[in-house]
């Protein structure tokens, strides 16, 4: 459990093994230990856990989030241990790529296994402790049943749990038979009234503003669930909880922040402006979790909304804004198949134009996107990847990071090396290479002139600088290999790559 130095993006480093640094330094950089109270309760905890904690407390259970380092003292008397994780076994992107490329297990998975193997949990389990696992990576237990058995997990809950968690907890405490696995379908998604407000502060001042998304991308489970908007009063209560804990910066979360209060995909400028005015009343600096590129272009061109929102947000505390954005693919053919609604209200055929225009608007307004790409989608062709490479070239002048992620079919998860060996092609390497160069070019500017520029981040800056130097040195090595032997030398089956990775 960590607040990533209150820098959400540093959390990405937990998805990798320690590269070029000792594990302790890597963990300190990406996942420092959280501050806790005298009972071992973290001052800031992951938002999802806070929701479950609040639901259980409201139902009268004696439930609390405990930092893993302080669990021991409770395990002698605890009857139920609930665990949540973003990526239990490093099966999500980009953990899966890091693992495959480096041959080393990422630190997120290592640290979770270390926790579950500690003696106190094993002893408590022998004495009747029940264990329930959940969170956004709950599905991974289905494909890692060896750990399900080893750690003695009784139940796995997958999906929005607010409607079901109280009943399951009661059953666990009363010794009733528990389900092995529960997937909460869209019909059982909780209503806004069933979702409690958090009672303790969330990591990075994270506050949800809505759930669901109307864009219906084929690869995204969120679109299966109904769209629900939090009323401003509910959002304000959570902001107050965070401010009370001393948190004055935060992330507002939605699959597309610009759709808050929207009618379908038509923005509701009044609702969005009121939302940002409210959030800025409590937070000195604000980040968005996600927006869509079409949403940015449309909101600015029709309502001048981006300009108006940055006028609300920017002041003496903040002069830029970070956000994660799904670029997904540069292939218009593939986009039409996997995300026909992503460019709406523009036709998906204009995807490159939408991307370019939106990034220009973001660049001008000092909004910095981390653009995620999906590679390896079933049916992807070399032409699709060439189009993606071209798109990366077209956006080279816009301040952004590009993070390629592989679509990983579940059947491959047991054999990561097989996955890489079978699926990465020269065209993938070309896309990844261009993305890496783009991110290195802009990453330094973003890190040192924006993200980590405050003097208090000096130690993080020094470590990050060392990491960048290491990456650049490796990139130069790889460039030399590319010049001498061509792109096929970098394919994972090649001994050249193996030697480079191992050295």
């Amino acid at each position, binding site marked *: 459990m960590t607040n990533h130095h209150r820098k959400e993006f540093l959390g990405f480093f937990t998805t990798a093994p320690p590269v070029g640094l000792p594990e302790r330094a890597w963990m300190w950089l990406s996942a420092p230990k959280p501050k806790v109270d005298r009972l071992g309760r973290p001052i800031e905890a992951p938002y999802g856990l806070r929701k479950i904690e609040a639901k259980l407390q409201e139902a009268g259970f004696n439930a609390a989030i405990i930092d893993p380092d302080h669990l021991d003292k409770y395990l002698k008397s605890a009857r139920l241990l609930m665990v949540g994780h973003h990526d239990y076994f490093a099966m999500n992107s980009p953990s899966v790529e890091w693992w495959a490329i480096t041959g080393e297990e990422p630190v997120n998975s290592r640290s979770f296994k270390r926790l579950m193997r500690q003696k106190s949990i094993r002893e408590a389990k022998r004495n009747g402790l029940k264990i329930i696992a959940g969170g956004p990576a709950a599905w991974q237990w289905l494909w890692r049943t060896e750990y399900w058995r080893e750690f003695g997990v009784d139940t796995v809950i997958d999906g929005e749990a607010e409607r079901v968690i109280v009943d399951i907890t009661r059953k666990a405490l009363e010794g009733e038979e528990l*389900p092995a*696995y529960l997937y909460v379908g869209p019909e059982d998604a909780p209503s806004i009234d069933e979702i409690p407000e958090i009672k303790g502060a969330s990591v990075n001042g994270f506050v949800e503003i809505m759930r669901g998304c109307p864009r219906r991308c084929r690869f995204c489970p969120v679109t299966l669930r109904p769209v629900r908007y939090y009323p401003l009063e509910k959002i304000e209560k959570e902001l107050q909880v965070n401010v009370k804990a001393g948190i004055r910066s935060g992330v507002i979360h939605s699959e597309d922040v610009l759709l808050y209060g929207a009618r379908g995909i038509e923005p509701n400028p009044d609702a969005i402006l009121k939302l940002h005015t409210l959030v800025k009343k409590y937070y000195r600096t604000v980040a968005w979790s996600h927006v869509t590129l079409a949403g940015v272009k449309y909101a600015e061109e029709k309502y001048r909304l981006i300009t108006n929102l940055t006028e609300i947000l920017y002041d003496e505390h903040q002069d830029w804004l970070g956000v994660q954005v799904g670029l997904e693919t540069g292939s218009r053919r593939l986009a039409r198949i996997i995300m026909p609604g992503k460019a709406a209200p523009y036709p998906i055929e204009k995807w490159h134009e939408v991307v370019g225009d939106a990034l220009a608007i973001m660049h001008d307004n000092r909004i910095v996107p981390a653009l995620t790409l999906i590679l390896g989608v079933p049916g992807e062709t070399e032409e699709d990847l060439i189009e993606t490479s071209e798109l990366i070239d077209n956006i080279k002048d816009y301040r952004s990071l590009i993070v390629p992620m592989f679509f990983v079919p579940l059947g491959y998860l047991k054999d990561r090396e097989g996955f890489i060996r079978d699926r990465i092609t020269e065209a993938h390497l070309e896309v990844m290479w261009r993305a890496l160069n783009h991110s290195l070019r802009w990453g330094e500017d973003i890190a040192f002139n924006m993200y980590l520029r405050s003097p208090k981040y000096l130690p993080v800056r020094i470590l990050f600088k060392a990491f960048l130097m290491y990456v650049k040195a490796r990139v130069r090595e790889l460039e030399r290999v590319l010049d001498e032997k061509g792109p096929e030398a970098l394919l994972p089956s090649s001994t050249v790559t193996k030697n480079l990775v191992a050295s």
Partner: protein
Amino acid sequence: MEFEATVRTSSEAYRVIREARRNGYRKIILYVPAQDPAGAAEVVRGALAEASFLTVEVRVMRDAGRSNNNR
């Protein structure tokens, strides 16, 4: 509306889930003869992708003598 069934194999799980979807059920309870929760998960996991529009509860059936008929 809930649909309950006992499934012993992955293909049975596929069949039952498809049937539940076809008949408009919103929740399905699958009883799986298994030694432990992980064993039950191993039987049904491949079929769960078919069930993303349903709520699915998987229960371990430790009593091997239980009926295999849909419940």
